[in-house]
């Protein structure tokens, strides 16, 4: 669909739109749209779930059909996605091969990148680069579905120019993490609360604040969802309340890291357990003659051997059996 020539990308328009579309409006539009997308992801029920967006989610691997149901469910990648900031999210969202950022030509990038800096009173021609998807994602704004004017929002421009979506994310830090592992988040946004609850066990809620605590269980839950320790700490640091001065308590960071590393302490190796030896001699011979015994119990007459040993022991016992 994107064939890389200039015109496929739409054209700048010189004429003024009747309705006055301001940058602020576009920003808030983009924000709302993007939040809605994230809401689909965390599974907030809403009346409309544009299939296009759902398809995109599935395509990007953020959601997948659960076993036995058609219902799409969030994947590990999706969980990780939620913790990223908008820029990262945009980057990792695969707009499909056709729209993939990498497939844009330099010119196209340039164009999208230039627009916001100069003017938003721009439109892109229908049937070109834009599609319903982009609209739903909040990358572009279209006043009416039949309108031929398209306004790229800051999301779109950051996507292409690589410039951070600043200002648009709006909310300055809102999370306070204390040395006693309590988390206080100044927010009433269901989305933010939902994201927090991925790794925080929430305890109480007030009009503009939720209170939770980082526990081993809650964090392990997050690990099981494929979220990493550094993603959690990064997320907390990125959204740290101004009183925190952007610094998380060391204890908390260390502990989360340790919780992660404790999952890696035990390493599984294949091995084979032999029990119920017919005769005591068999047990002793297996034990003494073969060099592959990993563990044994004289009381219970149990022997565990390595896979290589398994072959030998089996042969040995078969010989014995005869």
């Amino acid at each position, binding site marked *: 669909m994107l064939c890389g020539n200039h015109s496929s990308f739409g054209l700048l328009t010189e004429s003024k739109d009747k309705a006055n579309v301001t940058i602020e409006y576009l920003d808030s539009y983009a924000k709302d749209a993007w939040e809605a997308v994230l*809401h689909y992801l*965390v*599974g*907030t*029920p809403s009346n409309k779930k544009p299939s296009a967006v759902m398809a995109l989610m599935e395509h990007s691997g953020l959601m997948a059909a659960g076993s036995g149901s058609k219902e799409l469910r*969030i994947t590990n990648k999706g969980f990780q996605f939620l913790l990223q900031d908008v820029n990262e999210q945009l980057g990792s969202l695969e707009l499909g091969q056709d729209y993939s950022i990498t497939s844009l030509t330099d010119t196209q990038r340039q164009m999208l990148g230039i627009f916001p800096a100069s003017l938003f009173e721009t439109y892109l021609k229908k049937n070109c680069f834009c599609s319903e998807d982009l609209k739903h994602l909040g990358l572009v704004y279209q006043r009416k579905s039949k309108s031929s004017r398209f306004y790229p929002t800051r999301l779109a421009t950051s996507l292409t120019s690589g410039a951070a979506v600043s200002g648009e994310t709006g909310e300055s830090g809102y999370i*306070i993490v*204390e*040395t*006693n*592992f*309590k988390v*206080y988040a100044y927010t*009433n946004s*269901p*989305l933010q*609360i*939902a994201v927090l*609850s*991925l790794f925080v*066990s*929430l*305890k*109480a*809620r*007030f*009009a*503009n*604040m*939720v*209170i*939770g*605590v*980082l*526990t*081993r*269980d*809650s964090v392990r839950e997050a690990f099981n969802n494929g979220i990493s320790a550094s993603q959690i700490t990064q997320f907390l640091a990125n959204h740290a*309340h101004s*009183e*925190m001065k952007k610094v998380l*308590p*060391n*204890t908390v960071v*260390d*502990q989360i890291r*340790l*919780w992660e590393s*404790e999952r890696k302490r035990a390493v599984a190796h294949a091995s084979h357990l032999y029990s119920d030896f017919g005769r005591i001699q068999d047990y002793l011979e297996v034990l003494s003659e073969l060099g592959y015994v990993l563990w044994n119990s004289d009381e219970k007459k149990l022997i565990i051997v390595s896979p290589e040993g398994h072959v030998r022991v089996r042969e040995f016992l078969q010989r014995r059996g005869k």
Partner: protein
Amino acid sequence: MKRIRVESEDDDSNSEFAVSDSSSHDSSASLEYDSNENHTGVQGPNSNRDTHSDSNSDSNATRNTKAVRKLKQATSQHTKRKVTVTATSPPNSDLELDNETLKLDHSLRPIYAAADGSLYLEAFSPIAEQAIDFLVAEPVSRPKLIHEYILTEYSLYAAVSVGIQTESIIQVLNKLCKTDLPDKLVSFIRKHTNSYGKVKLVLKDNHQYVESAFPEVLRILLKNEVIKDARISVAENSTEVSNDFTENAQNDEFTTRFQTFEPVTFTRPAFVPKTAGSASNTMPRNIRENSNAVAKSNSSVAYQNSASSTQGSQVSKLYHDFERDYIDLFETENDDLFDEMSVLDPFENLDPTQIEKLDRILSGKQPAIEFNSHILGENSDENSQPFVNRNVDETRGQTNRVQSDPIDLAPPITLAQLDKETDEENSQSLIMPQDILDLNIAFITDPTAARTLGSQAAPASVIISSFEIARMKSEHVRKACSAAGFPILEEYDFRADTTIPTFDIALKPAAILRPYQEKSLNKMFGNGRARSGIIVLPCGAGKTLVGVTAACTIKKRVLVLCTSAVSVEQWAREFKSWANVKDGDVAKFTSQHKELVRLPNDNGILISTYTMVTFSNKRAYDAQKMMDYICSREWGLLLLDEVHVVPADMFRKVLTIVAAHCKLGLTATLVREDDKIGNLNYLIGPKLYEANWLDLAKKGHIANVRCSEVWCTMTKEFYKEYLGQSSRKRQLLYVMNPNKIQACQYLIDYHEARGDKHYATKLNRPYIYGGSSTADRLRTLQQFKYNPSLNTIFLSKVGDTSIDIPEASCLIQISSHYGSRRQEAQRLGRILRAKKNAIKNGDYNSFFYTLVSRDTEEVYYCAKRQQFLIDQGYAYDIITQLDGMETVAPLVYRSINERLELLATILVSHDMVVFDDEELEDYDSLGSSAFKTAEFSSSEVNKVTQVAATMSSLSGADNMAYIEQTRGGVRHRRFDGSFKKK
């Protein structure tokens, strides 16, 4: 569920019964929820690395679901009325949204209040400090930015007992809160404060009286069998009625008397608070007369009133006393304030109806105090000029509703005194909500303000009714009163007391009280009398000085009880260094000093230990004499050091033996693993003050400690053995983990190189353990203090509390007593005393290491232990690997052979001492370890060496074992000893 629905309907229909019913239901549910929260709080952050808490976390999980279910039930009735916006996917999102309407200026108000009594305070708010001063709640956790408190019965009891009133609590909380206070919370506060503070227990001439300004309350109480039983009726004792008491014709009526107030000044002049700039003590003559008039008119009101309400009561010489007090009171005031106050004669405009009203107030039937609000109204009009007071009307309206305990007539808010403060705030151009500006929290809580308060409150002289109870039964009475919802306050009007001779003692000029010490004392002496209660200050924050100052204020005979002979010496030293006492004035009563020390003029300070006083076996002749002496005297002040360590039974005994007017408990850690803390509330009194550790550390009053947890992996051999052993041997194994010893050695080397003085337990250094005599202990401590080549000492459990080693700056904890939070805090306390090199750009100047053997039970206990300090805002760094430990030469136990040898010795020796150990185990049940310390020191001073021997053989000496082992030649001497015994 059905039942709840019904209730919630009732709720809507505003039936009062149903409301209270449902609220009680709710609170039970949220209580459950809360306990769960605490539980996970404990478990959460740290239990983590524990491999042994599986069963625990299972039960946790079930409890969790239970609690959640309950919570849902509780919330279900709210969902009808409230639209809660929640995301559905996360499991926790259906949390109750407490109060969805924020005040418009909510960002300026620091508190979130939940209906279950939890309060969350933004410690970074500009008015946080004031708010904290006011907060009548129990601190749950106090880290840097957001503090958690919980309003409990006890905390409200404590608040009421320091003179804060129901409506003030509600009003101030409401102003500090970002939303309107939840109704449930308000009714909780009402419910629990209205009955509090109405009954007092007074000791007079060695007789105990229950007194109250509300005769009905006494009547209610007397319906209780226990109390009735304890009562000694007036007729039987008519000969002993004192001046202020008037005999009553009717037997079931009470003795009545008047009570007035005068403010207290602490002995040191510098203590006088700097209220306003111009403090001149000379008072114009006319004003003096004026105040006289006030006093006169007032007491005549009181007189009339008394005549009408309680028949047959006489007004004695009180009038003159009153007048004198009243003038004294004003003489300490500054002029500005005085002008404004005194020109108003509060009773000038009283008409008969108002007197009638007053009458009703005094008899407790009518809570409103209109004459007071009248004063307040004029006052605020006058005083509010510097800032526009938009809330005068509101304030007045609220005051009209004030349900006031006449004993502490306190107009809640708006005072001249505030001007300065407010101006300051204004000049800082802080934009605060007007009503918060108007709110003088200090006024409500701070007795400096209470003095001002006194000037208004004084007119309200109150008729006190009382009856006498048998002293031996006073504890039962106390308990019964608590159960009946009227917890007893104990106050001591020490200046009016002439039965105990005054003991001339004053602070030396060099003794400078720190602000928090002042604050805590203010709470104690807030209304001019001495309240019994507990003051909680961190270790090393100068508890002793607080005790000494209290003694200097009361100026009566003092009995100090502490936990060990060593701390007896320390108290004696402190008394001598802070106060102007002569040598003979301070007597010690320990096993070494048990000769009958008669205090000169029968007056002075006696210092002893709990065990010495409560020792129940036959005593030596000398000691018996001394005890008789103690029992026969009335003590002005009973100072209870380290009040947390002594279990209730012991206190009970102490309190029945010692007749004291005022009891002051001092402690750093009011936590116990068992539930014996609650008892302290009725045994001693409410918690008057609790300091914030982190705050004191920040201000340099105590050392800034860096806490670390060092993980030591168990060596292979040890761990293998560990897995197969019984729990007691396990303990020994994880304590004796060679890696731990190495880590310890490494840390000692490291810190000695840095020039830190040590306080730990190992490796060719002197040590103190249960078996050391007091003299030995003192000598070792002196050495540590002054000998530059001696930089490390080792202590066993006996060093946990009360040993004052200001020089120590680094502590390595090798073994510990299970999950005792208190022990952890107390040990940290040893190094908390502010260091000379303190406050260098906020660096840490003390170090606290805990060595933990990885993958053992110890990890679990360790996490539990830390909880208290974590709640105080401390953070533990986790050190998994000590850098460069490998390269430091020469560590002990490097070779595997050495280690195996050690292992073998442990296993064998332990088998042999296992019996002794068992005894200890019983003795040493969880949570009472420090008590044992007390017991311990006394048993050894009472020449019971047997216990010391068993102690040293293991548990008290799990640390000890170390020392022996690392001393090469004499290795395991202790164990050999126990072999022989066998």
